């Protein structure tokens, strides 16, 4: 799982916009699949991630081809999701959902995080 974090971090600086080359996905269905397939268990319902399990997916850009490649053959601890389990359209829907997640509030606007 930490390997995924590293990959995502590397890709964050990618020259290409992350959504480039991505097929059209249904973010609403992606949200349903995110819950149904249990992605939220490790990555959080808002894609906020967890230090103990899955990295943050919210606002953590990755290109679609890399996204699909990773879920098919993850290098970390995430279970692999074959096309038989998550087909390409479902992967696109999941990707669209992740792209749609809102930005968090500015950290300095949260008094409890200044303690």
């Amino acid at each position, binding site marked *: 799982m*930490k390997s995924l974090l590293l990959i995502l971090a590397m890709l964050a600086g990618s020259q290409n916009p992350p959504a480039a080359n991505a097929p059209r996905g249904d973010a609403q269905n992606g949200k349903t699949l995110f819950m*149904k*397939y*249990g992605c*939220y*268990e*490790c990555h*959080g*319902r*808002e*894609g*906020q*991630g*967890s*230090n*103990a*399990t*899955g990295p*943050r997916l*919210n*606002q953590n850009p990755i290109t679609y081809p890399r996204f699909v490649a990773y879920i098919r053959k*993850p*290098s*970390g*601890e995430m*279970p*692999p*999701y*074959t096309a*038989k*389990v998550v087909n390409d359209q479902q992967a696109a829907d999941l990707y669209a959902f992740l792209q749609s997640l809102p930005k*968090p*509030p*500015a*950290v300095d606007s*949260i008094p*409890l*995080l200044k*303690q």
Partner: protein
Amino acid sequence: MAKSRKFSADRRKFLKGAAVAGAATLAAPGETAVARPAARVTAPLQDPRAETGTPPEAEVLTTDHCGSDFMVDVIKSLDIEYFCANPGSSFRALHESIVNYGGNQKPEFITCCHEESSVAMAHAYSKIEGKPIGVMAHGTVGLQHAAMGIYNAYCDRVPVFIVVGNSLDATQRRPGVEWEHSVQDAASIVRDFVKWDDTPISLGHFAESAARAYKIAMTPPMEPVLLVADSDLQERPLSEKDKLRVQKATRTSPPQGDSGAVAEAAKLLVAAQNPVIVADRAARTAAGMKYLMELAETLQAPVLDQGGRMNFPTRHKLNLSGRGRPLIAEADVILGLELTDFWGTVNSYRDQLERTSRRITKPGTKLISITAGDLYIKSNYQDFERYPEIDIAMAADAEATLPALTEAVKRLITPDRKNAFQARGAKLAAAHDAAAEQARKEAAYGWDASPISTARMSAELWAQIKNEDWSLVSNGAGGWPQRLWNFDKYYQHIGGSGGAGVGYGAPASVGGALANRKYGRLSVSIQNDGDLMYAPGVLWTASHHRIPLLSVMHNNRAYHQEVMHLQRMGNRHNRGIDRAYIGTTIEDPNIDYAKLAQSMSWYAEGPITDPKDLGPAIKRALAAVKRGEPALVDVVSQPR
């Protein structure tokens, strides 16, 4: 205690006499008592004459002192403050001696609703107080219940003083259930995960073995020990003729690392460009934390705290616990202090379609280990983990060895090395600050989400307790408290269960709070829902014994640890993952933990689903805790 006739015969002789007398009472004139089956010893008491006459044999049931009184003397000599137990007939005399003869003080009887809770309470208590308390249980069914808790304490290297009742002499057992509650070798069920056990056959033997057991339990690696208190031995009247002596329980000095090995380790550490210190159960006491700080500051080396104990302050500039992997990968010398899993610290492991592993350190990286675990390893249970290839392995207690190691390091530091250390320290401090800032940013994601994020829950709780003298006695929220809170006192974190046996958290938090009570500390727990449902009766124990505790429920309504395993198997077998919730969720119906706690006289609120409601709810609960009550806030939370 009522005055009674002195009786110096032993119990066996008395019971034999009572049985014959009973038979004789029922015998017709001219018949001998032995011509009829022996009546139960209770028969004469049903005879009206027993209430008006003087039944001489029944009178001998009373005695001023019995064997269990002496056992209490022994226990008092060990300065054991509490005995946690669910009552049981096989130790009824010891129970009675504690509450009457001993005055229910040191030890005080703590009423528990499950033996697993008894052990987990004692487990956490010991980590706060640095010494064991007692657990009593039936040698059979009670010990079976207690077994998982004992295994947790064993894996966590924690002393617990366990006394189990048993009736070894078959001729003395009451018919019926006492037979089901008797066993030839009571300790056998847990012998693989206690450090020592004994079955004394005399009171003198009990005294000697109790002192020995205490000494063994308190010698690193500290572990649970078990004594069998035979019921006949407990109940046998004591006479003035008995010459009994309480043995002095000596404490051993913890083993220090060999001086040559210490010198060699110091040489490697001083010469290293990127040394890394990894600590798991390194600090046994507050002094251990101080020693580790001194070594790290002397070397200006980063510390990765794996959390088995409170090893290192979270806001110390050399605490780089969140950057473990890259630091391990860059290290040229790694010092492991009481690591559970050194192999896992320096290797990566993948559990995918094929299981693979690889070393993540650079070629030539030197590994130094100091652990008392090397002094004591058993075969059956595999808590010793994969075999690590260590360059310098000291079979010694890390805390006891650290001062000598630091002194050896200081002796080797040249001005050049000191300059290099200072430059390294500045870089590490910057990395620490960056990690702290990153944690703040990460915590903002999902800040207003419902269910409530674990980061928000941790931040809201911290806001309410940060100005108190607090102690986090159980943490079910993963790493967020360590990332956001300022841990700088030893008792503020006590590690985990040890054996990852679920059901530890709730009773451990009550046991930790019991230890903290006399210091007036605020005990706080972040309580997992699945863990609480193992034995929620411990909530009653907290109320009954007036143990203040602020418990914030991390109620994610599932056993999330296991879900990913189901997903992994479903994916591996190409069968999908949409049914992984079966058997892993705690929904339908949702459990109302506030009502559960209220039913046992806790102050409780919830379920809280809106994050804006959480801070005020914790504040109200905290006010109840300050009144001396246990209080619970049920928070419906994100999975992790």
